[in-house]
Structure formats: structure tokens, C-alpha cells
């Protein structure tokens, strides 16, 4: 039980966050792109209010893998940068913290586009 507990927590919390997204898809006029924007901004806001970090401490990847976690990463980055660099950190913090993810998406996608072919749908 001790061994699987972290995975169970990640599964439940991550699944719940995705389920909220699905409720928004099914019951509101929000398009997927708007939902993603909402989740990222929400991640920044909840981290700023000190609500999201306890969720990360509890659920680990269950809270960091959904896009709210991406927002949280941006917020924590800016916290750290403002502490260390003052006003300049307002500009550097967010992108510095999220640099790995964004660069990975860019580089892998570019290589992937060269290797693979757009597929038909059925």
C-alpha cells in the first residue's frame, strides 16, 4: 500500500482535474483552446494564492502534469526570480521556469514533423 499510494494519489487528483476539463467541454460553450488557457491562468492564480502548492505536495505528478501545473511552474518561477533579481525577475521568471517544457515541445515537434507524415482519420 505504501508503495502504490503516491501513484494512486497522482491518478485520482490528475484524473479529477481532467474530469473538470471534460465537464467544461460537455456543458459549456468553451472550446478546448479556451479551456487550456483557463487552466494555465488558473494554475498561476491558485499558486499565487498559496492553494496549489499543497496539492502538489499531496499528489505529485497528479498536480504537476495537468496544465494547471504548467501555470504553477510559471508562478513559482516568477516568485523565485523576483526574490533574486527584483523587478527584472517579473520578466524572466515565468519563461525561465518553463523553458525545458517549451523547448522540448518545439524541438521534438520539429523533428517529429520531419520524420512522420500527417495521417488520415477514420
Amino acid at each position, binding site marked *: 500500500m505504501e508503495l502504490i499510494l503516491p501513484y494512486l494519489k497522482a491518478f485520482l487528483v490528475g484524473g479529477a482535474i481532467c474530469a473538470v476539463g*471534460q465537464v*467544461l467541454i460537455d456543458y459549456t460553450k468553451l472550446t478546448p483552446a479556451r479551456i487550456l488557457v483557463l487552466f*494555465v491562468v488558473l494554475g498561476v492564480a491558485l499558486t499565487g494564492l498559496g492553494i496549489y502548492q499543497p496539492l502538489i505536495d499531496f499528489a505529485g505528478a497528479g498536480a504537476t*502534469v495537468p496544465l494547471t501545473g504548467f501555470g504553477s511552474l510559471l508562478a513559482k518561477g516568477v516568485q523565485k526570480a523576483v526574490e533574486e533579481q527584483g523587478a527584472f525577475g517579473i520578466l524572466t521568471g515565468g519563461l525561465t521556469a518553463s523553458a525545458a517544457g517549451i523547448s522540448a*515541445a518545439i524541438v521534438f515537434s520539429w523533428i517529429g514533423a520531419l520524420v512522420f507524415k500527417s495521417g488520415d482519420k477514420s
Partner: protein
Amino acid sequence: MQKMTPTEYGELVKKASPNSRSYRTIPMAFLVGGFICALGEGLRTLYLSWGLQEDVAGGLVSVTLIFLSVLCTGLNLYDNLAKYAGAGTLVPITGFANAVASPTLEFKQEGMVLGMGAKMFTIAGPVILYGVLASFIYGAILWVFRG
């Protein structure tokens, strides 16, 4: 045709339109999204066991999931899973990666600069824009109030 207002017609359209099958879509989103997060947790445990710092391990989890998502996108698997999983594949970081990879792949035919280059962020761009904007505002607030 007899007169009818858009409001009246809107009501008719609503009645004639089938509802989302939420009894299926929500559990599917929960299961698939939960699975992707549990996979992330597994990767995190693995990277931590290699002796990596907490934040490096976390970053590497994202990078690994992004890699897997781009791979699945290229193999035409991600969209087929998303058909059933909905938000379960949209909300995790893998959904962000798919949103970057799919237009890059799709618009390869229009060239490396105006195709792949210009279209890469047509879907995911707003996420970065509003994420960075929110962090900027949050940073400014922090700076003003830190005393």
C-alpha cells in the same frame, strides 16, 4: 417561410440536438488523464532514484511526457486516443505537446518557415501567451507588495 425569431429557433435546435454522452466522456477523461498523471509520478520516482534534484526530476518528467506525446502524435495514435479520452488527453502536458506537434506535422507541406514555423503555435500559442502574461502580472504584484 413563416416568421420565427432566432431565440425561438435556438430553442428548437437545442431540443433536436443530442446531448454529450457525459456518462461515458467524464469517466474516460478521468481514467486516461489519471493514467497519464500516474505515469508521470512513476517517471518522477524513477528520476529521483537516480539522485536528481526535485526540480530537475520534475522538469525531466515533463520533457519525457512531451517526447512520448510527440511520438504518439507522429504515429497517428494520439488523436485516436483523444477521440475517446477528451479532456483526459487535452489537459495533461501531453495535450499541450500534441497541440504543438500536430500543426507542425500537418503544415509541413507548406514549407519549413511559413508552414511548420508559422503554424507551430496556432493552437498552443494562446496557452503560452496567457500563461506568461499571468505570471507577469503575478510577478508585478509580488514586486510591489514585497515591501
